[in-house]
């Protein structure tokens, strides 16, 4: 089964495209995910995923009505709605300063309701499944361009402002003493996160996009001893799960998002269990030495 997967991987263009998309997302997801975790924004990623579904469903509805926008590619309208969702969260967060999670409930409800309405009126409802659970094997060239451009922008952002991004994420108050405008930073990060979520939508799926960002980082945190090592470990786990997930999705004919996230969860459970066993042994050894 593995051998036929490898031979098919290089025999078909769609497989190579899926692999390339997977490799890039395997770096992008934990890179943004590590900041999302430090800033405790895990549920915002989930909310943005739901809101970008409004764009996807609107695009399908417009296509049904014979209106062609953005080359009839749902990704682009999804991207715009994801950014709108991000800005709405920021707006509501400022109105409910002590109850910031309210903003996410409002945006996620609005997103889900509008998506349901648009999907119900669109003809191509079969693709709902793809957008909910992901289908990396069907990604097209537009999607590849979107992923590569997003990756380049995020890489540049981290290259030039990585220090500031990390400073604000760990401690907003002290970031002020570096001369960083925290409000502008919040806005830039929210827009970046919205774009990343929307380009991950097709391969990870609305329901699993935040998992693909967060779970490899959660596993990295169990083993990492520094910010850098945690990120490298998270990227390694992320790439491993993308590759194994791609194989499972192709061989077992299951949604790619579900396959990738399942591998991620297995890795996290293994890492957490092994760490617990090692720690217990170390404590037992220390107890033995002291007694």
């Amino acid at each position, binding site marked *: 089964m593995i051998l036929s997967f490898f031979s098919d991987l290089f025999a078909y263009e769609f497989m190579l495209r899926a692999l390339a998309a997977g490799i890039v997302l395997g770096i992008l997801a934990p890179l943004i995910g590590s900041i999302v975790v430090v800033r405790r924004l895990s549920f915002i990623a989930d909310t943005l995923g739901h809101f970008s579904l409004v764009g996807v469903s609107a695009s399908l509805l417009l296509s049904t009505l014979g209106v062609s926008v953005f080359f009839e590619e749902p990704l682009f309208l999804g991207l715009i709605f994801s950014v709108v969702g991000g800005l709405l969260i920021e707006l509501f967060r400022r109105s409910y300063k002590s109850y910031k999670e309210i903003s996410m409930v409002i945006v996620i409800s609005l997103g889900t309701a509008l998506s349901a309405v648009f999907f119900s009126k669109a003809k191509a409802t079969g693709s709902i499944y793809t957008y909910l659970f992901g289908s990396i094997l069907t990604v097209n060239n537009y999607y590849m361009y979107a992923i590569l451009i997003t990756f380049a922008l995020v890489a540049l952002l981290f290259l030039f402002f990585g220090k500031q991004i990390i400073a604000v994420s760990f401690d907003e108050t*002290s970031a002020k*003493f570096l001369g960083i405008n925290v409000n502008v930073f919040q806005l830039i990060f929210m827009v970046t996160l919205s774009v990343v979520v929307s380009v991950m939508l097709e391969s990870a799926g609305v329901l699993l996009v935040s998992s693909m960002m967060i779970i490899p980082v959660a596993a990295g945190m169990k083993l990492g001893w520094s910010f850098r090592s945690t990120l490298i470990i998270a990227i390694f786990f992320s790439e491993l799960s993308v590759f194994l997930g791609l194989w499972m999705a192709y061989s077992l004919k299951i949604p790619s998002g579900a396959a990738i996230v399942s591998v991620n969860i297995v890795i996290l459970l293994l890492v957490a269990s092994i760490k617990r066993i090692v720690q217990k042994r170390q404590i037992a050894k220390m107890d033995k030495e002291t007694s």
Partner: protein
Amino acid sequence: MQIDIHNLSFAYGHRSVLNNLSLSLAPGDYLVVKGKNGSGKSTLVKCILGINPVKTGMIFFDHEDINNFSKWPLFGYVSQKFEEFNYEYPVTVNELLSVYSLKNTNQSYRLKLLDQLGILDIINENINNLSGGQLQRVFIARAMLNNPEVLILDEPTASIDKLNTEYFYRTVNQLNGQGITVILITHTDSLAHMNYSHVLSLNLDMTYQFQVRDKCDLEEVEKI
């Protein structure tokens, strides 16, 4: 840096915390702010740092209005119990300090600072493995990284033991001796180990006493 506060009042909604407070500090002064919980100590610091917007009264830094002030890197701040910081995520002392260093801060200055604070040996440690005393010195190092002119410490000894507290106040005295203005808030600590120049006592009824060291009745202040 010269700090001038004129008739500062502040309220959280309808609850007034500071009323008509005025004081002046010259460069190199060491102000201890004493007062019971709820007397407005942290509120005052947050006003000075521009975290609480100053609407009634005025604050000037070197004669520049706080509302136009932008040279915040001249301030170093250690917040109460370091509560603002995000723990649990692995990050080493060196990584943390690199992130909060401005471009002109070099590695040798950073190492010298860590040595002065007695934490050079933990530079590659994950901050989650540090004791309260070590962590506190890391945060002071962070506040000192960019050569601030003013160091603001909000109840900095809240999470450390007595021995570390004395060591800590010696370090603050040394830093003040180098010409850095210090504003230190304390609820419980004795002033015995501090080389303070001024004391501000805040009362729950929003009255206050601002005194220079020579004219200050230490026994009265310690009772607060």
